[in-house]
């Protein structure tokens, strides 16, 4: 603000200085640039979100929307009364846990490899990024073939070693693990890229200083690199958790939520409730709960990521 502006504003009581003509023009320009995105966001995200929140308190069917009637908290009470929501959420959290437990260490090790000067880095980078950019439908279909109990490639390999063939997706004990492994396989490249970005942000001098301080390469990794990547790790954990909580394709394309509801992931369950069981009100309530869970995880992440130190 110039001295003249200050003089002009001085007599006024308002603590916020009035915008001058140029600032107003800048604001208009900014809105003009943001408008297309904001309008789309509003129409396709926030309006449906509000409608969903409303429907969560209604007895509502897609076949006859006009017959919707307000039922208060009944949909939420049903979640406690019946087992389906609890079982589905339990399966979903287990799914997310297995995905994270595979993706984090594997992504970290692959990122260390890509950050090194070892040969074949470009090839490995392409190989691990390929599943990430491949459609979930393609991946699910491919793994369906791989995991086929009678003709699948994986059972073929197991049979070569003289071991018994595995049921995989048709076993209540194995199906969830298998779709978790598949999802982890697909997502590990993304985690690797995030870890690689984190690794490249760690100044080289820190590991050099540690080596001079007497650290072996393992001790540098454990005492310097891993702690300095804690923020990246937390970020990857949250991204992978949120992604896994919203997974749909594996349950829809590979298992139909079975066998015995063992892979009945929450989003697939919501889909079935809304479009198969024609209970859109209950599905909306489940969606709202899922939204709150994801929101809670994101807030927790932001709280944990408060900067305590930086470099």
């Amino acid at each position, binding site marked *: 603000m110039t001295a003249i502006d200050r003089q002009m504003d001085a007599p006024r009581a308002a603590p916020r200085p009035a915008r001058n003509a140029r600032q107003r023009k800048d604001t208009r320009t900014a809105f003009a640039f943001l408008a297309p995105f904001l309008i789309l966001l509003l129409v396709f995200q926030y309006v449906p979100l509000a409608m969903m929140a409303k429907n969560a308190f209604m007895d509502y069917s897609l076949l006859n929307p006009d017959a919707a009637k307000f039922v208060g908290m009944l949909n939420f009470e049903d979640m406690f009364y019946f087992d389906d929501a609890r079982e589905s959420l339990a399966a979903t959290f287990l799914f997310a846990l297995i995905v994270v437990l595979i993706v984090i260490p594997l992504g970290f090790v692959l990122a260390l490899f890509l950050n090194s000067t070892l040969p074949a880095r470009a090839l490995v980078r392409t190989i691990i990024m390929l599943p990430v950019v491949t459609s979930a439908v393609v991946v699910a279909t491919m793994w369906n073939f791989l995991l086929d109990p009678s003709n699948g490639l994986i059972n073929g390999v197991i049979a070569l070693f003289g071991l018994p063939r595995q049921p995989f997706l048709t076993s209540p004990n194995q199906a969830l693990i298998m779709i978790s492994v598949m999802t982890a396989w697909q997502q590990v490249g993304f985690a690797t890229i995030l870890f690689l970005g984190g690794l490249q942000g760690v*100044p080289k*001098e*820190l590991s*050099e*200083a*540690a*080596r*001079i*301080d*007497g*650290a*072996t390469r393992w*001790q540098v990794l454990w*005492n*310097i690199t891993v*702690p*300095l990547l*804690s923020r990246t790790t937390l970020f990857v954990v949250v991204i992978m958790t949120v992604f896994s909580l919203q997974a749909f394709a594996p349950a829809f394309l590979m298992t139909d939520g079975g066998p015995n509801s063992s892979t009945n992931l929450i989003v697939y369950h919501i889909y079935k409730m809304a479009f198969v069981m024609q209970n859109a009100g209950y599905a909306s309530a489940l969606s709202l709960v899922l939204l709150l869970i994801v929101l809670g995880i994101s807030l927790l992440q932001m709280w944990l990521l408060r900067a*305590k*130190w*930086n*470099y």
Partner: protein
Amino acid sequence: MAQVRLVDLGKTYDGASANTIKGLDLEVADGEFLVLVGPSGCGKSTTLRMIAGLEEPTAGEIWISDRRVDGLEPRERDIAMVFQNYALYPHMTVAQNMSFGLRLAKVPKAEIRQRVETAAETLGLRDYLNRHPKALSGGQRQRVAMGRAIVREPGVFLFDEPLSNLDAQLRGQMRTEIRRLHDRLSATTVYVTHDQVEAMTLADRVVVLKDGRIEQQGSPQELYDRPATRFVAGFLGSPQMNMLSGEVRQGALDLGGGSQLALSADRAAPLEGRKLDVGIRPEAFRLAAPEVAVIHGRAEMVELLGATSLVHFVHAGQACTALLEPSEAPRAGQPLHLGLSPDRISLFDADSGRAV
């Protein structure tokens, strides 16, 4: 304590056409403060990093005391290093930063605490032991980096331009602290800098590097008074040494512009007729009466520095500087008559740049 010996050390980077370091031979005595100085790209940091074990030489040997260390990991070399950007561990407190090496070495806890506290006392860091580096000023961070080196009580201290990230005032202060610390610990030290003032003030011995070779080594005063090459002459000293073209004719040094300086017969005789570069320190000039003065000119600009005055003038097309007493310095535009003693000039061969 320890000595460092570099034998025919060489370093070539892949893809680089020329060697970065070429056949470097250097010995650092036990307890000596050696400063490697040179312009950027002269190989001084690379040399230091090879001593540290952060880079491997492509030729030659590195000895610390009576052990050959090239090929060994940094941790096996009994060295500590202070980095230009401090390289403090951001997730550790000052105390944790300083004790990291000792903890790795499984030193007993009581001893770690005692050593860290002693070092913190020495460096004035007592009140900051529980802070993270983020909450420290540049000078404090620099002290922590030095503390981290001290507590390990290594045989050799390595400094890689430790003061270049500090502002001028702090730099001067830390310079004296580093020297005082060295006098107290008398640890063998190799110190890399591009700042000739640091080199002059800190060193027992200065090694001037240029293009990966040793240009000259000796005590700071030796290098200042008797530079072996035109490069060393120009590199050390601020303001820079004046460089004039000259030629010895009939026993006198012709400095161009009608200026003649009488040389002793035994100095002049072998140089008769050779093209020379004549190096004159700014403080070697003194005001003289016009009839005995060697150089006659006009003061173009005068910079008052308080204790001294810098008088800028042009002689035979060459910009020159004279350092004079403020009380006797002429004002800009006034005529300038300067005298010069023949034993205060340095003569270099105009082609090779070597002292003659």
